[in-house]
């Protein structure tokens, strides 16, 4: 079988403040024989500019897609936001002739043309569809059988259904199944598919803090020892902002939030240092002790 090969699209926020996600993702993908090619000359995916001008978002995204088309490779994103704008733009421009002509008009100014020959995949779909559960299972050497976690997939790997068209947004199972491969138990909790709130934190803190606090309460209520995410924005909301949420509501959660590849990496036998677990705001000390006891 040929090695799956992708262009890695890190986006902006991961290199800005969440290298731990990139480090751990690169480690586990290498272990799974996935080849990552460094994507040249990419720019912001366009997502944050959709509020300013829809054409700007589409054209910034399409420029990245054109780079991938030239390289003849599909794009792998780690961020839900990047997946949303790149995947949506790819589908819109493939299916809607009018939009494609308009955006190609802009792209002509930078000597590019969208042809519709590339694909955009988020990490969880690369793992579940292209690598496959069997292969992942075979790399698990230290099953995390005595820990219980909960997952938060985040909105944009699931919605809107018509553009993502993969997992069921009402009852998503992809990330849950990926977690189960590590040997950890994945617990259900109330309102699993609810948004983290991060996208509006720049204009209003009150609503996102309430949303994230409620999610942390629901996760705590079922006895999860960690929360697993696959999006840097969700991660920031639950990990980096957790102490602020605790202060705002006079609560104590102390719930470690791990990027999925960190969890998988631990089950593959990588050390916490190799997976940059020390970069988490909420220290997973107790969780790591539990894992050690399970060995």
């Amino acid at each position, binding site marked *: 079988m040929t090695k799956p090969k992708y262009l890695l699209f890190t986006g902006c926020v991961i290199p800005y403040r969440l290298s731990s996600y990139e480090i751990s993702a690169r480690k586990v993908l290498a272990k799974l024989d996935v080849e990552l090619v460094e994507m040249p000359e990419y720019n912001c995916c366009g997502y944050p500019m959709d509020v*300013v001008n829809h054409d*700007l978002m589409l054209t910034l995204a399409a420029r990245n897609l054109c780079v991938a088309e030239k390289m003849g490779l599909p794009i792998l994103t780690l961020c839900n936001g990047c997946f949303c704008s790149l995947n949506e733009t790819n589908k819109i421009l493939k299916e809607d002739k009018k939009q494609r002509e308009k955006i190609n008009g802009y792209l002509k100014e930078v000597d590019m043309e969208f042809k519709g020959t590339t694909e955009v995949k988020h990490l969880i779909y690369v793992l579940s569809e292209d690598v496959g559960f069997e292969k992942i299972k075979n790399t698990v050497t230290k099953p995390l059988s005595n820990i219980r976690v909960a997952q938060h997939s985040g909105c944009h790997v699931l919605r809107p259904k018509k553009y993502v068209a993969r997992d069921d947004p009402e009852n998503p199972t992809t990330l849950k199944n990926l977690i189960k491969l590590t040997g950890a138990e994945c617990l259900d909790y109330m309102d699993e598919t609810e948004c983290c709130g991060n996208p509006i934190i720049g204009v209003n803190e009150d609503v996102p803090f309430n949303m994230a606090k409620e999610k942390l309460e629901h996760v705590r209520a079922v006895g999860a020892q960690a929360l697993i995410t696959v999006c840097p924005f969700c991660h920031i909301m639950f990990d980096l902002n957790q102490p602020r949420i605790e202060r705002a509501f006079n609560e104590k959660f102390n719930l470690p939030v791990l990027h999925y590849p960190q969890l998988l990496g631990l089950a593959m036998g990588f050390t916490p240092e190799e997976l940059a677990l020390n970069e988490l705001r909420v220290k997973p000390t107790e969780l790591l002790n539990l894992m050690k006891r399970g060995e």
Partner: protein
Amino acid sequence: MTEEKEYVPPVIKAEELDPKFKYKMSKEHGAEKVMVCFQCGTCTADCPIARFSEFYRPRRIARMVQLGLKDRLLLDGALWLCSSCFTCVDHCPQGVEIAGIVRVLRNMTVEDKNLLPLVYKELATNLMKTGFVYEIPDSRLQKRVEQGLPPLPKPNMKDVLKIFEVTGSARLLEKVQTIAKVESK
């Protein structure tokens, strides 16, 4: 002595309505189906923002578009509270893309009212300066090397700036007034 204010009931005056607004909206990508909204309220019932805001109501936004209350919509800060989770889009029994409508209205606010929350202006400024929406400090780039990560690619700034120019975005961003924060209660 306190002056008594004359009570003004919250009524909509006919002169505020722009009957052509809904047709204009229907031509915009993402807002095509606004006229078939029959006000069932599924969007509002399932909206996570509406649960924690006293006035963000997606159903109301759809109705205001149908009535043609353009100015009220565009000058209402509530527009900026949507987190684009797309739950309303997936749940609408009529296939109305409320989040798409909100996005069209936000774009119109920038274009017609020259208003934009400060955070997006900052992200845009960074993007036009570095190709990324955050200005990644040199210490971060250095740390990448220490952590064994490959160097970040240099975005093609000529292309990025050209895209801002040809889509008219550079002109829009130049003249916007910024809104610092938006209330939710």
